């Protein structure tokens, strides 16, 4: 797994302990976190990119809502899959993809997991920390 690189290195990275960390910006003007880290300005107070520094946070999030997408709407995401609005940190809400086909209830804590995708890994979210979907185990063994 550590040989794989993040598909979106501006959004997440592998921490030394093998977990996934999300990359945020912290604004020197308003002290708030933004996502992604490389945004060209602070979405909260409007400070320019120069005021932002990248900080890593554990890949945990609070699930607000989720649904199953039944039709393939993007070639990179074949259906079916479960998509969710996640609150990554207070005030930062992003759409993300869950592993598996469960639809957890609102308020569930979810955890970022690395899912191999060719030579890269994607960041998906799972209900149980350390969840790795069966397909990725096969991918890692191959």
């Amino acid at each position: 797994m550590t040989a794989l690189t993040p598909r979106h290195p501006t959004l997440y990275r592998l921490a030394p302990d093998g977990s996934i960390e999300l990359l945020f910006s912290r604004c020197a003007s308003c002290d708030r976190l933004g996502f992604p880290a490389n945004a060209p300005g602070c979405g909260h107070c409007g400070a320019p990119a120069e005021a932002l520094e990248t900080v890593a946070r554990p890949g945990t999030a609070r699930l607000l809502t989720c649904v199953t997408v039944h039709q393939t709407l993007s070639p990179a995401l074949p259906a079916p899959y479960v998509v969710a609005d996640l609150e990554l940190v207070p005030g930062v809400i992003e759409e993300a993809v869950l592993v598996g086909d469960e639809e957890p209830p609102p308020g569930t804590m979810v955890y970022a997991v690395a899912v191999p995708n060719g030579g890269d890994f994607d960041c998906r979210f799972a209900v149980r920390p350390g969840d790795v979907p069966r397909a990725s185990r096969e991918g890692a063994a191959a």
Partner: protein
Amino acid sequence: MRPLREMEPVYVAGIGLHPYQFPNDTPYTHLGLTAVREALTDAGLAWRDVQSAYVGTAAIGMAAGRVMFRHLGSTGLAVTQVENASASGSFAFRLACMEVAAGHSDIVLALGVDKFGDGRRAANKDGLARLSDTATIPAVKFALLGRAYLRQHDLPVEAMAEVAVKNHGNAALNPYAQFRKPRTLEQVMASPKVAGDLTVQQCCPRGDGAAAVIVVSERARRRLSMPAARTVRVLASVANSEGEDSAAEPSVIDMVRASSAQACEHAAVAPLDLDLVELHEAFSVEELIYMEAMGLCGPGEAAHYLRRGASRIGGQCAVNASGGLLGMGHPLGPTGVGQIAELVRQLRGEAGARQHAGARLGMAHMIGLGSVAIAHILARENATGAH
């Protein structure tokens, strides 16, 4: 911000459309010219009378206006192309109204025209990655919104499907609509699932078409002796965009609330005074959510309002009498202008089988990717100019 109502009076004097239809090979010029000619005839005007034209289109490409208008005659009028995604036509209308309200022009065209196919979006060119590959796709966003709404108010999935039933029924009465057959709840529910609780018939179709309205000043209305019964006053034009998202409430809801409330304030009317509302129900659940945000009914009450017939033609406030985006269609550029045309037709008492009796006041509300929102309020005036 100065209300439109306090500027020079603005009227819609002519409307015209090309029917909305599934993607096809008809050149956009034919669609647009059909709508413009119908609007000119409706207003009793000639092309040379039009001083300025705003062309709302999301997908045609650069410089659509003159390519089309030269076939009406190269009169040298000002031509401006306007793009605001799904709300392109609404913003073309807004700019036409503002030009007349400012006293700059007397007769201005707002045309919405589009062809399906080239919907490139800036959100995919911002150089920023996203955790989900469908984060910029509205169907997913509204599927999530819909699920949260149904859960919040403990509503069954049929509650949103009923919107599609009503609007397809209205569209069946609309000769310009893309869909012309009523649909049952069973048909809507049985259509293929798209995302969450949204089935295909609860999502607006792809298509093209055109809609045109001609906006005139009081001066032009008098000079040309336009009958008061056929000119409809534009009382308000308000536009805004989303604030920051929060876990407490999706930002789109506050955006709709704020734009519609300010439009009512500018028009000096209350939401419950509205006889008609045309709104952006590209996905069925939006109609329920936005009706509440607009104050047509209380929180969580829109499904009941619909079930008891209050949003039907002939009910308390006819919502999407045209058939809406689900039934009439959503060809993008034309959609917002088509909403205005429907309100004008209704307020003139010329809506035939779709007529909402006693219609005096209507609101057209649109949303575009971004998101942006825009609201217009139109009123029938009596012969003395009061409304």
